[in-house]
């Protein structure tokens, strides 16, 4: 049975890869035979869309790593064209739930007890289902409501099979394609993320660490972890409520000002990223709530990331130099952050920032990484393959761009420099 499952997954991953490869190559070969010029970037858009749909379809069928892979691809606008990214973004909402019996077995195996020896109630329908785990509402014996995040049974093995398959596919692809996109580093990045996300003990530690960081504030909520009912694969935590951060009408109905909510959210993220160098790296709207008293809830610490020392200051210097149009400081900041040009010519950095800053009204960076600006930044990087980007920067850039998206739903700006300035009391 297992063997069959593994063979089936390998086969589907392999055939999808071949199909995608042919999708690109057959038209290219045909054109070469007919002696026509190769297709330009724009003309390839339909092919990109077809390939992305094929990948998404296989991913939703097989789940596991492929979903995560789609998610990672969707975050790498510096490598892939927008047509692909737009489609693969959908894999966040589209995941079907696993049957309850599977979940029950997994919880009982992990906790070493029957379900009703730990929980007075356990909802059959999950609150949310994702690629590696799903979350159920439950009530502990003494009556406390909790959220239980349960990893799918066998997911680790599936992950390993899938990763091995993907590495193989990459190797084959790179062998055949004369100018391959560097897919292998993406798979390696994915492997690192998955290792982090599959370890709920680490997730619990990260939650504690972020909670400590805001302990003195009293305005940031991180669910308490019930360690006695948690393992590497099951995470039992305090059930917290609130309004989803993008639901502007409900936020206003609760008597909160969306601009205040946004300012507080930005304060929290600048504190984590720039000041503490440790952050919850996944601020998508599903992971953030606002409570009626204005407190912000942070969820999902699977993807929490430690940034290298000096990263926050380096990022600040980069933003600052872009605000003051100081080119020599920009180059210095890029280098400090670990950007590299393969030809050693730093003027490429300036071309890239220039393109990004053209997307702002004033031609200067004003403190907000809007989605258009981040897209433009990553487009510019993709089109200048001489630049290599540190992966931490990609993660942070994505986080700020997600926050800017939340800002757009709230009708407020996600200004990083302003959030910093406000908490220093420097001005205004």
């Amino acid at each position, binding site marked *: 049975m297992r063997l069959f499952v593994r063979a089936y997954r390998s086969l589907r991953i392999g055939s999808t890869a071949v199909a995608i490869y042919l999708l690109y190559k057959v038209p290219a070969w045909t054109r070469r035979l007919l002696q026509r010029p190769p297709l330009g970037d724009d003309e390839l858009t339909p092919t990109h869309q077809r390939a992305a749909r094929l990948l998404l379809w296989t991913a939703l069928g097989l789940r596991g790593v492929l979903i995560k892979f789609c998610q990672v691809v969707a975050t790498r606008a510096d490598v892939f064209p927008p047509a692909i990214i737009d489609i693969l973004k959908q894999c966040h909402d589209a995941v079907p739930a696993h049957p309850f019996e599977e979940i029950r077995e997994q919880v009982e195996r992990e906790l070493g007890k029957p379900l009703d020896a730990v929980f007075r109630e356990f909802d059959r329908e999950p609150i949310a289902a994702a690629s590696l785990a799903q979350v159920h509402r439950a009530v502990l014996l003494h009556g406390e409501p909790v959220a239980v995040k349960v990893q799918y049974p066998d997911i680790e093995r599936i992950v390993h099979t899938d990763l091995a398959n993907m590495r193989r596919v990459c190797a084959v692809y790179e062998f055949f394609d004369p100018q391959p996109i560097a897919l292998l580093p993406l798979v390696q990045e994915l492997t690192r993320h998955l290792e982090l996300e599959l370890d709920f003990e680490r997730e619990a530690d990260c939650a504690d660490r972020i909670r400590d960081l805001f302990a003195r504030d009293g305005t940031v909520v991180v669910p308490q972890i019930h360690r006695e009912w948690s393992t590497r694969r099951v995470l039992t935590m305090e059930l917290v409520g609130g309004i989803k951060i993008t639901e502007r009408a409900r936020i206003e109905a609760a008597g909160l000002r969306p601009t*205040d909510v946004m300012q507080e959210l930005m304060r929290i993220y600048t504190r984590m990223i*720039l*000041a*503490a160098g440790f952050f919850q790296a996944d601020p998508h709207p599903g992971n953030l709530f606002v409570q009626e008293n204005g407190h912000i809830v942070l969820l999902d610490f699977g993807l929490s990331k430690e940034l290298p020392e*000096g990263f926050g*200051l380096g990022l600040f210097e980069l933003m600052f130099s872009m*605000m*003051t149009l100081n080119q020599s400081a920009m180059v210095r900041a890029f280098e400090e952050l670990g950007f590299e040009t393969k030809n050693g010519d730093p003027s490429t950095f300036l071309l890239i920032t220039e393109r990004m800053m053209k997307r702002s009204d004033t031609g200067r960076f004003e403190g907000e990484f809007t989605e258009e600006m981040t897209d433009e930044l990553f487009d510019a990087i993709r089109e200048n393959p001489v630049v290599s980007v540190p992966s931490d920067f990609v993660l942070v850039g994505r986080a700020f761009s997600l926050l800017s998206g939340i800002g757009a739903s709230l009708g407020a700006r996600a200004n990083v420099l302003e959030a*910093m300035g406000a908490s220093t009391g420097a*001005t205004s």
Partner: protein
Amino acid sequence: MAAPSTDLPLEYSREELLDSGSYDEPLIAGGVRCHGGFEADGSYRSPRTIHRAPAVQAWQERLRREDCDLIQIDPALMPPQYPNVEQAKLLLLEGVREPVVRRLTIISIVEGFGAIIRDVGVPDLASHVVEPITGTSLDHLEQGLFEAHARDEAGYRDEGGHKQMWEAARDLALENPKIPGDVLMQMMGQGPGRRRERKRGFPQIDERLERMLATMAQVLAVEVFAMGAFDWGERLLSDSEVSAEPEAAGRMVSFIRADESPHVEYLRTGLSEVAARTLRTVDGGSIPGREVVRGMLHSTLRGLTRERREEQRNDIRGALIEAMQVHANPASLLERFDELETKWTPPEHTGFEPEDPEPQA
């Protein structure tokens, strides 16, 4: 201080207010070209002042001619530095360098943030002020005054400003020290976010106008208090017992201080001009500008001298004690350190308390 009444013009273009003229020799700090420079006789001239300085003088003279007060913040309100010069010196002499490096770095960053002033929205002032504003500094805020201020603080294009000058002074005096990883943490504070004032102080006036005036009052107070930090920096960094380059580092801070005085001057001129006028309220009535400006200065000064100060001192102290652990005898060092602290209680009055309803004639 009765300057002779001159016939300096009251109108300036944006280009003029941003013009530095030419220098005999540029200012180079730590290998970075900075703003400002030197005249033939070796004296330092601040950037963007060849027209801005006489302009501010002209507007101030006009206020005087028209018998209006020029706002003055009492220097006694300025909280002492923590750590003060003697305390900082003790730390450096005892090999505990981190807190001083951190403090200097934070000063440089906070200076840089001064650039935010250019993003303060300036409403159509002529429509909010009853009396005419032609020939005032108010009429020039967007015409170069805010922009010049922003460039002075943060630098502009490849010319460094105060941020880079402080960095240079720090690196000269303390020989390119390693920057502690937690500067931004210290700077942003560890307590809860200071909620943006939910309640507006003067809801009867236009919101943008209120925000602009409140920012000007806040920045004026910060600038006046910054003089304390400049004294501190200049004394410490020019002390040959602790500074590797006492002369160059001390001079650098003195240039920064010289550049700051136009900021204090144009801000107090602008606020005084508002105080001498009447503001339209949103419901069609009016309110004396004096009441608004004094109200804003009062609440800003109370905030800066009371709530904020304790909070900041405690944050700094926590990190200080931690940094002292590198010392052979941290407890005795802390004791000596504490003995040197400047005792201070904030004065009772800010000088901008609400006035009697009937102002004297």
